[in-house]
């Protein structure tokens, strides 16, 4: 080998080294550049994504605004509908109360006339006349009862404001009501029995007038729908005096026609009359039990029944005790 060629060799190798360095540098640069490029791409993607999000948010915002507008329109519609309903309800209440008051005046006149004729205050009458006058009086009284029921249902639609709760001695009240029913019971030879209850029963918290309506209705039904020589018993159950909600339970049991499965479903509905009840008494209003349930519930009590077709019916209701 020629020694002179060495520098040449070294020059060549230097070139090669610098080329390699350049290459490495280029790689690094290229790598760095590549990294930057992917970062930029990521940033762009990010930015696009953010922009998309912002757009989505704006859309959601617009939707929300539209929904809010729709809601306030709906709210307005609802409140005006509500207002109309309230006006209708008021009009209905007014209508029923005016009609019933206006109906009671001529009904009273008819009733009094029948009474005066029947009591021979307008002269002697024949037995035939007496019979028909008696029928006329009975019909009139039935009509007055229905009008009274309509009036009380109209009121009970409203609130329990009209209630005046006081301490009511239940047994005395029931005794006095049973007194009114002895003669209709007797005419069907039905024995009307108040089972003796424990001495010193506490009083219940009740509106005496309203409670009287419930008891009259239940006892009247029991007698009406019980055949000849049947039995109607009233019991006051005091087995629930020591619970956290002490109450008395009234049980009215008859040996009457009972309730069909259909009647059991609907018996407390407004204006419902069971076909078997219509057969016995065609002219009822279908309001009695509806009103009874409403009244008992406004007292904070419960009302229910057990019945078998043809075997009789048992009505139960509870009333909270009067607490000082």
């Amino acid at each position: 080998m020629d020694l002179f060629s060495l520098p040449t060799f070294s020059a060549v190798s230097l070139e090669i080294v610098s080329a390699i360095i350049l290459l490495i540098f280029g790689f690094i640069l290229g790598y760095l550049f590549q990294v930057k490029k992917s970062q930029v791409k990521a940033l762009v993607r990010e930015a696009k994504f953010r922009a998309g999000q912002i757009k989505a948010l704006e859309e959601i915002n617009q939707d929300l605004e539209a929904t809010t507008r729709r809601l306030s329109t709906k709210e307005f519609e609802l409140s005006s509908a509500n207002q109309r309903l309230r006006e209708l309800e008021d009009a209905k209440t007014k209508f029923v109360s005016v009609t019933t008051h206006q109906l009671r005046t001529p009904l009273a006149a008819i009733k009094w006339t029948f009474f005066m004729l029947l009591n021979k205050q307008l002269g002697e009458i024949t037995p035939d006349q007496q019979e028909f006058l008696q029928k006329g009086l009975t019909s009139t009284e039935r009509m007055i009862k229905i009008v009274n029921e309509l009036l009380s249902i109209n009121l009970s639609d409203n609130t329990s404001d009209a209630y005046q709760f006081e301490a009511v001695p239940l047994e005395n009240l029931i005794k006095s009501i049973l007194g009114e029913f002895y003669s209709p019971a007797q005419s069907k030879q039905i024995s009307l029995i108040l089972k003796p209850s424990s001495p010193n029963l506490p009083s219940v918290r009740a509106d005496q007038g309203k409670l009287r309506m419930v008891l009259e209705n239940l006892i009247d039904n029991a007698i009406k729908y019980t055949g000849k020589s049947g039995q109607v018993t009233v019991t006051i159950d005091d087995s629930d005096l020591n619970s956290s909600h002490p109450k008395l339970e009234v049980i009215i049991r008859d040996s009457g026609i009972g309730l069909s499965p259909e009647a059991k479903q609907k018996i407390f509905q407004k204006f419902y009359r069971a076909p078997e009840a219509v057969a016995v008494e065609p002219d009822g209003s279908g309001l009695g039990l509806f009103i009874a349930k409403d009244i008992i519930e406004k007292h904070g009590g419960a009302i229910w029944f057990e019945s078998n077709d043809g075997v009789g019916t048992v009505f139960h209701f509870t009333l909270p005790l009067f607490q000082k």
Partner: protein
Amino acid sequence: MAKKVFIVEDDEFLRSLTVKRLEKEGYQVDVAVDGDSALGKIKEASPDIILLDLLLPGLSGFEVLKKIREDGPVKGTPVIVFSNLGQREDIEKAKALGVNDFLIKANFTLDDVVMKISSFFK
């Protein structure tokens, strides 16, 4: 001397039935057919007891009752409201105005009214 009953009642038929029934019982009966004329006629008749309807043309029964109670010679005369108004608030209102009794026409008969009136003279 017959006791005097005064009836304020706008319904002609009810009024005539009531008058007839009370006269049969031996009462002397005077009437007014509306609220406006009632007070003057009552003062003139100076009755022993007043039967007062509530829904009347002109002054209502409540207003008549108020006027009866607020002045003069008939201030202490017993008043029985005899009406077909019978809601609790009507009864309370009449009580607050000083009524002595409250009967709902459709739920009572004239015999009940006679009994009620005679109970004031026992």
